[in-house]
Structures are given as C-alpha cells and as structure tokens.
C-alpha cells in the first residue's frame, strides 16, 4: 500500500550550519563535546555506536518547537532524550543529527487533588514526581524500575511491576502537549476523564518513540496512596507451581498491586547481588497488596490459600517502607544481578507477553529452549499481566555462544507470537524489534508507515526507529 520511508544522511555542510545556528541560539545549552554526545548515543541496553552531532537542552515548549522546526527545514534528524534508560536502541543516532535532551524541563506544572490528575513537563522523572506530590496523599504508580522521565515513559508506552493493578502508560495519560515536525505545539486530550470527540491522538503519540513528534507536557492520572501497603515473598519448589499460582490469583480477581516471578537462577543471582537473607535459590513470587487494613488482610488470606494449594512456602512480609524498598530494589536490580552472576558475559533480555491462560505453557516452552541452549539464562517477569523476560547471557568473544543466544531469543519471541501474544510487552521497538513488528502486524505496518509519512513527511523524527523503513 505505502511506499518505503527514506532518509538520507544530511550533508556535512547542513550539519555544520545546524550546529552553528543552535550554538548561536542556545550558547552553552548546545553541546558538541565527545563525552556528552557519546552519553546521548545509547540507552541501557546493548551499546550501539551512532552519536548525535549536537545535544541541545531546551527549557520551554517554544524552544523545542523552534529546534524541531529548524531541523525539519534543514532535513536534520531529531532524537528526544529523557534519562537514557531505554533498552532497544531508541536513542542511537543512526544518521547523526540533533539530540534534544529534556532534562531542563522538569516542572510539575499543576496538581489537581479533586480530579486526581497532574500536568508535568517531559523531563520530570517518576521519582521526582512522587516526591513533589507526596504531601497531597496521591501518587503516580507506573514503575518500570529505572527512574525514567515521564516523557520517555510516555514515548515508549512503558509499564512495569504494578501494571497488573494500575495499567500501563497508555491507561494513565489523559492528554499531551506535542511539538510536531513543522514546529507547531498541539494539545491532545482534555482534563475530562473520558472523551469520545475525534480520533484518539493522545494514544497515537504515546508509544510512538519520538517518531511522530516530541512530547513536552503530560497530563497524568494520579491515585490515592493506599492506607496500607504490604509486600510478601513466597517460594516454591517447582516453577510451574509458581506460575499457576499467579494464573489462579488473576482468575479469582484478587487485585494484586504487583506479582513478580523470579526463577531459581534469577533468585540465586539476586540473593548474591542484593544480599537478601533467609531465601533459597528457588522459584519465587514477590507480591504487593494495596488497600485498607481489612482489605489487605483479606487479600493476603485469599492468596495464602492459593499458594498453599500449589505447595508454596510460608510468607515473608515486608510492611515497613525500608524493607519494601529493599525487596523491590532487589527485584529491579535483577538485570544487574544477572550481569554480576556471569562475570565477563554480556546479556540481552527478551520481552514476551502472552494471554495469562498461555503463560504456564509459554514459560515452560521458553525454559525448555533455555535448557537446550546450555546458556545461563534468568527468567523474571511481571507475570500478573503475562509479561516475562528471559535474560540470556553469552560470551561476547565466542561466536557460537552469541549465535546460540540469538537463536534462543528468536525461538522465545516466536513462541509468544504463536500463542497470541507479543515479543515486546513493554520495552518497545527501537531498532531491535523492527522485524518483530512486521511478523506480528503484517498489513497494519503499512497503515503505520502511512501515518508516519502523513505526520512527519520529511522523516526527520527519530528516523529508522519503530516503523520499518520498507
């Protein structure tokens, strides 16, 4: 249906002119030092070479608009940068260009307690937001682990450990301010909780990974801080029992705030890395309950009866804030624990997500692939919503290991798609999952490409990402 997207690397002259112009306008907020450009060329995933030519630090919507407009006219790529925690190569400057770093746009613009919402600039991080609104008794729940910026989380449609209760960014954004490639500043959505007026532009920009425009402000839903938060850990002898516990809990409608699975290898790594005491290297569920005292007690009772049926251990509770933080930090550090567990190795993580009725089959099939490969792999997942990651480690100098690692990842992705799921539940596409998009969506990719062309005719917004060029 639609022809290929094209982008040609800008000429050296065009780049030099752009850099000069930006330096003139932004002074020391337009930086060309190697160190800063290198820092802005990658996220936390595998490092991909490809540096921007200049990094600019705008402070207002109007500044972002003027940079984008200038670049669009000069056909120079524009890549937005939040905190650099993405995993799929979203930030790599494939064709050089201008990186717009949002870290100077960090104001919480308004908080509306009765409406349970707030408006923030894109550079606000989720921890900063929660600190600033603490006095209101409200909080913003989405927690992808990293202290990411709200703009970055919106652009990649992030989710995290408590998506099972609070949804993903998709469910928690009421509206946006977006700078479009031609330098216009548009507002999408309203402060009303629902709207059926016009197309849902908000959700189109959410998850578009900077390829349609730059998100500069976000209207977010907030939630009341629960009266009581209780975290608990339960261990199992067998992985399938842990998985089936989750499936049963979800089917019974127990409103878990978080329910995370760690397999025995991952647990071993976490015990060693985060110095967790009193746990065995066994399949483990980390759980969190939110609600009033009575309600939390009731949820825990229900959960205990399920884990009991599946041979789970007694619970270890963490009710105090410090204990909970330690527990969840251990969970969030799982990736680094995995790296420390296998010194000298490199790793990447798969991101499968399947309907929960297929979760047990999918994890078992993934585990079988892992065992067959002979590689050290760790399984960890937000299993309440069917999402899990296999961290595959390999020796970067051993070609055979690298090939086996790629094969395992490919097999696991394929299994998830076959089961009606997706091979990226939350990390996004960037440059690493472009083929997966084609495999999953076929003809719909044509429509996406047509939309990309319609909204960014010169293909200057993060070119080469998210939508396959052809």
């Amino acid at each position, binding site marked *: 249906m639609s022809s290929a997207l094209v982008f040609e690397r800008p000429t050296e002259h065009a780049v030099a002119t752009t850099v000069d112009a930006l330096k003139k306008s932004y002074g020391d907020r337009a930086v060309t030092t190697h160190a800063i450009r290198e820092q802005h060329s990658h996220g936390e995933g595998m490092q991909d070479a490809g540096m921007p030519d200049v990094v600019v630090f705008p402070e207002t919507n109007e500044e972002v608009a003027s940079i984008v407009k200038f670049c669009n006219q000069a056909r120079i790529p524009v890549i937005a940068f939040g905190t650099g925690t993405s995993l799929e190569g979203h930030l790599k400057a494939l064709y050089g260009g201008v990186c717009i770093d949002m870290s100077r746009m960090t104001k919480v613009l308004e908080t509306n307690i009765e409406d349970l919402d707030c408006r923030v600039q894109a550079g606000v991080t989720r921890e900063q937001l929660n600190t600033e609104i603490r006095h209101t008794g409200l909080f913003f729940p989405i927690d992808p682990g990293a202290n990411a910026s709200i703009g970055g989380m919106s652009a990649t449609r992030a989710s995290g450990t408590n998506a099972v209760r609070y949804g993903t960014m998709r469910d928690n954004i009421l509206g946006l301010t977006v700078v479009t490639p031609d330098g216009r500043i548009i507002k999408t959505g309203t402060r009303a909780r629902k709207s059926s007026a016009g197309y849902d532009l908000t*959700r189109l920009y959410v998850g578009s990974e900077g390829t349609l425009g730059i998100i500069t402000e976000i209207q977010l839903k907030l939630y009341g801080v629960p009266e009581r938060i209780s975290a608990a850990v339960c261990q199992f002898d067998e992985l399938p029992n842990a998985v089936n516990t989750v499936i049963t809990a979800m089917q019974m*409608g127990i409103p878990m705030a978080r329910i995370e699975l760690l397999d025995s290898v991952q647990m071993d790594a976490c015990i060693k890395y985060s110095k967790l005491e009193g746990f065995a290297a066994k399949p483990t569920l980390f759980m969190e309950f939110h609600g009033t005292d009575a309600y939390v007690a009731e949820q825990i009772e229900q959960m205990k009866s399920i884990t009991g049926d599946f041979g789970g251990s007694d619970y270890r509770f963490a009710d105090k804030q410090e204990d909970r933080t330690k527990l969840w930090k251990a969970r969030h550090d799982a990736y680094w624990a995995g790296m420390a567990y296998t010194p000298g190795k490199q790793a990447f993580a798969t991101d499968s997500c399947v309907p929960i009725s297929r979760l047990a089959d999918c994890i078992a099939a993934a585990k079988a692939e892992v065992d067959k490969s002979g590689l050290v792999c760790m399984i960890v997942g937000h299993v309440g919503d069917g999402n899990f990651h296999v961290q595959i480690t390999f020796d970067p100098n051993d070609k055979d290991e690298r090939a086996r690692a790629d094969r395992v990842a490919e097999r696991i992705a394929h299994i998830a798609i076959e089961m009606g799921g997706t091979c990226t539940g939350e990390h996004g596409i960037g440059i690493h999952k472009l083929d997966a998009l084609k495999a999953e969506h076929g003809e719909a990719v044509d429509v996406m490409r047509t939309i990309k*062309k*319609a909204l960014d005719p010169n293909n200057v917004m993060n070119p080469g990402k998210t939508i396959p060029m052809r």
Partner: protein
Amino acid sequence: MKAPSLFEELANVLPRENLKIAEEDLRPYECDGLSMYRALPKCVVLPEDEKQIAEVMRICHAHRVSVIARGAGTGLSGGAMPDPNSVVLSTAKMMKIIDIDPLACMARVQPGVRNLAISEAVSQYGLYYAPDPSSQIACTIGGNVAENSGGVHCLKYGLTIHNVKKLRVVLMNGEIVTLGSDGLDSLGYDLMALMIGSEGLLGIVTEVTVKLTPKPKLAQVAMASFASVETAGAAVGEIIAAGIIPGGLEMMDKIATEAVEGFVHAGYDLNAAAILLCESDGTPEEVADEIARVSDVLRNAGATDIKISENEEQRARYWSGRKNAFPATGRISPDYYCMDGTIPRRELPRVLNEIERLSAKYNLRCANVFHAGDGNLHPLIMFDANVPGELQRAEDFGAEILELCVEVGGTITGEHGVGIEKINQMCVQFSPKELTRMHEIKHAFDEHALLNPGKAVPTLHRCAEFGKMKVSQGKPMPFADLERF
C-alpha cells in the same frame, strides 16, 4: 450506468436477501437514536462474515461509493445516519460469540453481538464485560467500539478503550488488519486506540477481543440527599479526593428524581435538591469498609440523609430510577435533548450552577442526571417541538452548555460521540492544528474519504463557516487540498 453495476456487484458477493434496495426495506435504517435527522441510503447490505465485508468494501472502494457502518442504531449523535449516496453496512447478521477464554478473562466476538449478550454468555464463568451503556440490552459491541462507549461503571472499570484487547478491521480498500494483541501491549503505533471512538471513519470492525472482569462478590449502594446541587457536586470531588474510586457514582437533581419517582418508585428522597448514588463493589469486607468511609465523606460534605441498600433487591431499585431517567423524562416532556459534555470533576458545582442560569435564560426545564464520578454530564433539556422556536432554543441551550464544558477544560462528548450532532462544537474544542492532524490520519486510512462522510471530524471549511475559527489570518488555509468529509 454506474449505480446498477454497483448493485450487481454487491448482489454477486451477498445472499440476495442481504442486499436491501426497495424503499420500504430501507426505511428502518433512516436514522439512529438521534431521530431528528433522517435520510434514506442508496442501499443496505447485511454481510454475514468478514470475507463478505471485505468484498463489499472492495466494491464500494472501486465505485468510490461511501459506506456507513451501523450496529443496533442506538447511537445518540447521528453517527449511523445514512446519506442518499451511501451504502449502509449493517452488522446485524454477525452475532456470533467466537470463543471464550475464561482463564485469560477474554472473549472473541463478532461486531453485531449485543453488549449485554457478552456478559450473559460469560456469566457461567463468574465473569462479565464491564462497560455498561444504558442501552446495553440493545447496543452492539461494534457500535461500542466506534463510539468508545462508557456507562455507569466506567469510573472504576474504564471505557471501551480500556476493555478491548484486539480488533480485526477491514479498511476501505478491502484490506484486513489486526490491531492490538491478546497480551498486555502491542507493538508499534497504537492504531487500535485510533480505531476505538473513530465513529466508523477509519474502518469496519469485524471482530472484537474483549477483556472480561470477575464479577464482584457483593455490591452495595449508598444514596445521599443534598440540600443543593452545588453541595452534591462538591461531595463528588470529596469522595474521589479521599482516594475512593466507587464502582459507580451518579447524581440526579430534583427535576430528575421527581420524573423518575412517578415512573418506577425507586424510593428517592423528593425533598432533596439532588441525590448521589455511590456504589461500592468487591468482597464483603472491602465493601463494608468502603461504604463506611464513603458515608463519612458524604456526611462531612453536607449530606442531609444517607441510606444504604440492604439487599440486592433494594440496590436494583435504587439503580432502576437512574437507568430509567431518560424514559421517565419522556413522560413529563414531549421532547428532550440529551447532552454529553464532560468536565474535570472539581468544576461540577460551577457548571451545574451555570446550567441552572441558562435554563432560566432559555426558559426551558433541564433535568440533570449523570455520571458524576467521571464528570460526565447528561443534561436533559425538555422542550416541545410543536411549539414554534422551542427546538431552536433547545439546540442553542445545548450548544452553550457544550462550549462551557470546553471552557472549563472538558470535552463536548464523554461517551455519545460527535456524529453529526456535535460537529460544530468540534471547532470549539480543537484548533485547526489538531484538526489538521486528524485529517492527516483520516487520509492515511481512507484516502478518498469514503467512510461515514460528514461525521465526527469537521472540515476546516465547515469550522470557518461556523465562525469559531480564524483560519485565514492573512495565511492560506492549511491543507486546503485535503478531503472534505
């Protein structure tokens, strides 16, 4: 020459009885729930499967004939109103529930399945489909997707967009695409979100995978009386600000309760200027806890009386009044006009006051009965179309309410859609910049602008005529060559 060949081609791909051409067969399709606008289509097609839909679309595309999708025809904004040059595509013959996965809490259904039929079919597994528009007994899931429908319980359980996982869609050129996924998230641009609420302008939905919700063990309603509409409005904000998200939070003013009480005898306090119905659902412990907290908040907010439903029968009775508010209003007024503006909750007292003022200004009664928790207003403007000038006054009154909603940061339609009814107000809510983005999206899906022409998204032209937008400012109109639909 062209017209007969369209019919011939359609007749080749559809069973004869599923192609309606005679005027008496077209008459039932002349309007939807917004019955003041009527027209007969060129023909009506009733395809039985996705393949037939794709064929119909391919043929219409080749003939450059526009297509208007229709579910049960319960829409309130004229989204399914025909046009003499269009083919109406009804999904009435696609009513199969394809499969139910109780473990994953989801079901795959055809677009013509009724909203309530889904809940009935999955009830045996202890599940239900949460969005519950008042028309749920009749309206179809395909129509719900087109309008992003809500209902009484969407405050807690979300709108259609939050309860649909995957769609199969036939595009105008006959291509079939799958949007969304059975998993938590799907790759790439969120085209499913664009499709939901697009009012039949982007494609024809042929299959919907819905999310199912476990039925709560218990539900109880607290009914609170207030001495003024304003204090009731403020109490809504207080409940939410206390961190309580009730299963439903509805408000009715005195005009509405009086109308209803004579009709269904729901047991409402007729001395109150306004009542709030606040439902709590979940396990018995959770409900007891929440009802106690809600009662405290309501009392502190100035409730003069609070009643708690003691059993299922009483709960149903409290709700029956709310659910019958529209027909009850029909009993006391020859005609009424239902609005759908939605505002940030804390603006409720101000907007309700303003509506009262406008009611005096236009000399028309207005009942307020609405989804207070969402800030979704449904003012029912009562008038008599047989009295010269009353219809016009009602429309002006309505338009002024909608403009007020936008002014306080809200939207002209929370759940009924734009259709033809609110197309002018779209020019108030969106600037040319945003409308241009919408036209670009329309163009990407439907370059010849054949799907549901003239609805939902106004042309910049139209807005210029409506006089609310300054298109020129010395510059040429942007995208002047874009399609006009």
